[in-house]
């Protein structure tokens, strides 16, 4: 270690450029894992079921929705069994809402560390993405018995799932990077965002299909990038599901927004320690 080139830290009032900031994130990548590990350990510390809770939550949601919408209201999803339709929708939506909610709170949650030790603060929401991935993987386990039960096969297109999840993450982080950058001063966001998440699920095809929605609010569906994500997940999983054309335009909007979000956050994070 002594033979390394001398490490120098330069402190000025200047902000990092986007490139410098991205390099910093890379340098601190181990911390992303460390924080994710901490969250997972803490979440299931002193519980009997541990990770089992991750499966119980979507399972109950699945049971309730399948019963009311599928069985009582007889909603159908083309030729797909309704429970599979709901579960595939929940996969994408829960992943998204976990990152948005936890990501925004992550800065406040780690206030004590932020005030004492330096690290790029984007590490905090990024670690939440990892936690969300673990939970997603566990929820996915529910899928297998359900597929067998309904005698459905899975599509080879599942190999595209990582790309869809990456897109899903970018949408979620785009929201987090702006809300977290503002929430430390405008605390109202801590109330507004859960509210939006609560309503968001109703303009995203998680429970119902497009034709259930009235014509007048059809545009919300197209404006919502999460519709594209949820539909694309179904396209990846089910052999006969048609490709969602909304995917590409959404991509064009989200990618620049995401990078602008990183830049915006890197500006804001310097003030975190002075204000939280």
């Amino acid at each position, binding site marked *: 270690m002594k033979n390394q080139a001398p490490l120098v830290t*330069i402190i000025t009032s200047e902000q990092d450029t986007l490139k410098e900031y991205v390099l910093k994130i890379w340098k601190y990548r181990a911390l992303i894992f460390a924080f994710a590990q901490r969250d997972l350990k803490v979440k299931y510390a002193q519980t009997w079921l541990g990770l089992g809770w991750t499966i119980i939550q979507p399972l109950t949601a699945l049971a309730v929705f399948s019963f009311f919408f599928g069985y009582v209201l007889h909603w159908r999803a083309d030729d797909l069994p309704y429970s599979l339709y709901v579960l595939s929708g929940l996969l994408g939506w829960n992943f998204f809402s976990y990152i948005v909610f936890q990501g925004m709170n992550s800065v406040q949650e780690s206030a004590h560390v932020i005030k004492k030790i330096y690290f790029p603060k984007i590490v905090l929401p990024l670690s939440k993405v990892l936690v969300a991935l673990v939970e997603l993987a566990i929820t996915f386990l529910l899928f297998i018995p359900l597929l067998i039960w309904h005698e459905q096969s899975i599509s080879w297109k599942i190999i595209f799932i990582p790309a869809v999840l990456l897109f899903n993450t970018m949408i979620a982080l785009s929201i987090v990077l702006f809300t977290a950058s503002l929430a430390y001063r405008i605390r109202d966001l801590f109330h507004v965002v859960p509210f939006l998440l609560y309503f968001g699920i109703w303009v995203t095809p998680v429970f119902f299909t497009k034709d259930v929605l009235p014509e007048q609010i059809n545009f919300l569906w197209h404006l919502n990038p999460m519709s594209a994500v949820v539909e694309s997940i179904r396209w990846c999983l089910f052999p006969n599901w048609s490709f969602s054309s909304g995917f590409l335009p959404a991509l064009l909007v989200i990618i620049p927004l995401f990078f602008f979000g990183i830049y915006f956050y890197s500006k804001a994070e310097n003030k975190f320690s002075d204000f939280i």
Partner: protein
Amino acid sequence: MNNDVSINIENLSKCYSLQHSVKDAKGNSTYELWALKNISFEIERGKSVGIVGPNGSGKSTFLKILAGVTKPTSGRAEIYGRIASILDIGAGFHPELRGRENVFLNGQILGFSKNEIKTKFDEIVAFSGIEKFIDEPVKNYSNGMYLRLAFSIMVHLDFDVYLLDEVLSVGDVEFRTKCFDKISELVAMSDKTFVLISHNLNEISKISDTAFFLKDGIISEPLSIDNALYRYTNAGEKTTVRLPSFVKQASVEFKDAAGKTKTEFMNTEPITIEIRNSFHASAGNVQIGVRLTDRLNNVVFNSSPILQKQGLVEIDFANDKKITATIPAYLLNTGFFTVDLVYFNDNKLLDEIVKANYFTIVLGDDFTSRKMIGESGPLKPYLDWKIE
């Protein structure tokens, strides 16, 4: 850039914006608070410096900037090597995690890889002395255990620059000694640099050879420990407490055997304290006493004629009487001492003039400047040594 420089600071300033306006020195209202003003200095590799100053002088802000936690408003600092910013013991500990898990988490937050921590893990745990409880969640730890573990982590990981904010006095007496020994070991290494903030003057004097005095965001030139501590102890003005209307005027002067007034004495000569005072009103039997305080703000002694069976020496309010007391030669150690005046009757404190005056003692001819290992204390008596 010079290879022997560890920290180089140029014109560092920090301005906080306030939510409510305050009056500045000129009486204009402002929303700005300049916590640090144009700080510049350089610290060589392997040197340790202390920073002293009253509360709110900007010490912690300064360390926060060096640690990268907050940005300066202007100026620049360069720090060479790996930085341990220990602004709080155990920042980053999570109460729900086990001791073992927290060692890794804390180490990683401080910028170490899992492998680096793994190689030091046994040492860390052994030093903390809580092997038995390392797999308990830290929320079940006592405060002392928590601090022990946190402290062990920071002293066992290999940093080049340590930024310490009031974190050295942790745990019980035994552990504190252990910490100090460990810190002293690190300080003694030629390539470790320490920047230490502390209110415990004793602590600073043990660790560093140079100190800065910071007040209202303005830093002094590098000072010897004695001078920095002197400034710190005297940062408050001469203060009269309790019944400020009692003593009208009081002055303290120091005279040598020839009757010459001075403030620097050798430890081999007697010092005569000469007090003159006048009062506003009569308060019955008034006793006067002096309190001598050393550079670390420890009381060396209290003295008053009434304590010496000379009977009640009543003060005549009509006249400004001269009161003298002589500190014998060969008693005090080198350093500076301050004198407080205390006025009291029977059991009641009437008035107190803190830091009425000070004097410095230098080494006289009968002593060598050689140092013994360990602390020296406020006294340096000439003992009658015999070897038989």
